[in-house]
């Protein structure tokens, strides 16, 4: 059976990646600009957008090292070194928030990420396009619901005075405490992720599945490959680059698990279970009194850790022969 090509052709061994005898004379910057200026011109709007909405705000990360006040001229804000970071790391609620963040992030990675893949594979195997489109719509529609709506639906359904509780009560049972029990919050959170986000993840994997050449399946079927064999040897390798890409991006965002889901259920579940880094920053910096510098220091911490994790994950992906988030030159 022909193996599916999922990455760039291998470089002939011993060549060192150089094409001897065909080396072009290096062009000067001016020469390159003369030939490429239309391309550069086309990138200008995107560059401007990035500069205004990303790089300029990113430059303001410097206030993490200042005792910043918006009411002073920028240069009049005193530098305080790593004092805000010190205050952040010394805060007794920072480490629990960090641990909760990691806990939910890894749980999301372990239990939701594969669910999206499984859903995509199930959808891919449905032959009827009508059934597929209906199922697809039902599954990914909740992605567009706000967290307020999601939490409300769960309370109305599984809350102590919800639909299921009252039904159980009718049979002489007890009310559910599911939506206010910190011990079962992880399962509740997983249900909420599954309902809201799994469908969206599925769409991305479905797009990847659509790019697999159908003749590969036909050839495999002719060769006598079973459904599982086709899944294992064609489908999964076919979407592996996308899986790796999303996995790397997910790992990069490991300290960002969302905000509303935890903030909305804070009173019901308790702060010890629902305090994640984003709610920690919100309660202390955004609506709290620690000020913008403290929040920026926390945000910068998240960003640096995320960047390091992305670089490590990408490097590992490259070493394993995967493309990662960019094609290695």
């Amino acid at each position: 059976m022909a193996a599916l090509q999922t990455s760039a052709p291998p470089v002939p061994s011993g060549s060192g990646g150089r094409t001897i005898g065909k080396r072009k004379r290096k062009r000067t910057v001016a020469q390159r600009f003369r030939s490429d200026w239309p391309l550069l011109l086309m990138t200008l709007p995107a560059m401007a957008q990035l500069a205004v909405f990303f790089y300029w705000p990113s430059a303001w990360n410097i206030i993490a090292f200042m005792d910043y006040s918006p009411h002073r001229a920028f240069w009049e804000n005193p530098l305080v070194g790593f004092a805000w970071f010190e205050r952040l790391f010394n805060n007794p609620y920072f480490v629990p928030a960090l641990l909760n963040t990691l806990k939910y992030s890894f749980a999301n990675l372990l239990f939701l990420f594969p669910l999206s893949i499984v859903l995509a594979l199930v959808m891919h195997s449905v032959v009827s396009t009508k059934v597929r489109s209906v199922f697809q719509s039902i599954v990914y529609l909740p992605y567009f619901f706000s967290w307020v709506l999601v939490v409300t639906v769960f309370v109305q359904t599984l809350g102590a005075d919800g639909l299921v509780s009252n039904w159980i009560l009718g049979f002489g049972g007890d009310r559910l405490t599911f939506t206010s029990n910190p011990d079962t919050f992880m399962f509740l959170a997983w249900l909420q992720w599954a309902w809201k986000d799994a469908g969206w993840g599925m769409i991305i994997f479905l797009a990847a599945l659509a790019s697999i050449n159908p003749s590969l399946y036909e050839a495999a079927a002719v060769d006598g490959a079973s459904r599982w064999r086709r899944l294992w040897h064609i489908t999964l390798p076919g979407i592996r680059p996308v899986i790796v890409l999303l996995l790397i991006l997910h790992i990069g965002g490991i300290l960002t698990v969302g905000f509303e889901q935890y903030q909305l259920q804070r009173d019901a579940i308790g702060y010890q279970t629902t305090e994640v880094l984003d709610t920690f920053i919100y309660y202390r910096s955004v609506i709290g009194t620690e000020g913008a510098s403290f929040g920026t220091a926390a945000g910068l911490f998240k960003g640096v850790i995320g960047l390091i994790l992305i670089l490590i994950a990408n490097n590992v992906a490259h070493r394993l022969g995967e493309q990662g988030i960019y094609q290695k030159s």
Partner: protein
Amino acid sequence: MATPSDGSIFRRRSLLKAAGLGAAGAAGLPFIAACSDIESGSGTSQTTDGFDFLPEYKEWPLPVEPDLVGEPPNHPSGFTTYPEPVPAIENLPSNSGTFEITMPMWGEAPSNDDPYFAAIAEASGGTRVDLRQADGMTYAETSVQWLNANEFGDGIMFFAWMIASHPNFQETVVNTFYDLTDIVKGDISERWPLLAGLPTASWGQSVWSTDPNDPETARVFAIPGSFSGGSNNAMFARTDLLEEKGQALPTSVEELLEVARAVNDDAGGRWAFGGTDYLTPAWFGLAGGDGWAYIDGKLVHNCERPEYTEWLEFRRTIWDEKLVHPDLPSGTLDGQALHKAGTIVFQLDGISWWQGFIDQSTAEGTGGTIAPLGALAAKGRKPLVHVNTSVDSWTFLNKDLSREQVEEFLDFCNFASAPFGTTEYELINYGIEGTHFTYGPDGVPVFNEVGTTVVQAPVNHKTISGHVQQFLTGAPDMVQARFEYNASLLEFAEVNIFEGMRVEGPADFKSAGQVLIDQQNDIAYGRADLSSIPEMVETWKANGGEAGREHYTAAYDKLHG
């Protein structure tokens, strides 16, 4: 020598990059390390009386005296009849300016195109004040960023409780808003007689110092709202449901528990309580405001007092006995709807819910009667009632306005300060006769549908500046009932130990307070035991509580010597 692999840091380009980054880091570190300490968020205290630059008080004679005479501010006087309104302003100014003022709105904001707004502009002398109404639920928090970005139009209105959401409100005020001192100083009664009739204490509470450590830098930065006094909140009981069960209104915490047990039916979907987080601390004698009481020669915070444990024990008891709606912690309940439906018997709400319940249950035909519980206390102690200690609100003007613009806006504020019994008050509070209201059989204006939508909102031009006097007005029965209710609370009103001073706590103290609220909820909703209170208090002390005590003690000493 072997060629370094692509990933090696020994490649020439990688080495240069690493060297560059290292050099930048090495250069930056001393720059970052040679630094001062964090000074922001250390809290402020501001004296609010004894100034010689406030507007000189000139009593503005009321056109008609109230028939129920109380003891303002905690027990305001009231009108049980509607007088024939008379004009308050004799010499109408001739203005043409337009202002945009940001203010909170709970519910759907009406269009500024309604004739109500045009009529107000005309009646005020030509000044048009367009309202930029933002969601009241998030107003306090989001306003921090509007102020930082100078995106709040020509002015902004804040209720007094909202300023606690600002990290350093003193710094914000003196850097963002117009300094009114030179305009309002001294005798302003000729041009703005109604503003001159506002209590001196209200103007005093509109003062902030540009340097918190230098009393000489104090200036007037805001136009004060009304000084309502009294209690704004109450625990409302469904008296019809109590009667059904043969229960009377409870007069103590112990009685309340008994009544709650009698009316509660968990399996049947009826619970005694919804929220009990605010107001209830007063039943146990705990302090209002930032929670400080002066006991045995020092400031003691609520959480350090034995009554605090009693209060949490009460909240835990009603939770354990299933006397509280089980989905309350989810924050998704509509308490007022559940109270109307009889699902919740005791509803903790603003005092306006008294009239609101009657209006809504009459309109919807749901029926039922409610009444507020009086001053309650536990264990036979004397009750305590938390009361307002400052003006209700302020309107701040953008510092970019010109002096002429500010003066014109003060013309408008003078118009908006007209009290009950004037045509100006009637227009602002009820709208245009025939368009927004009609007179009822007892002569009291009654809103029609348009009036309810456009004018009845509790926050609009009517809160831009304070009234020279604040009265109980409206349906005669309700005025009488509220007058008697206020009278019954009067002797239990809490004495403000920081009277004459506005204290803003340090950032750490506020952060520790937020954690304390979370921990209180843990106990109240059964997630932590009462035995964890001592540990909670120690944590609070270590993480900002003691710093708070130091700051508030310094302020207290400054005030009391």
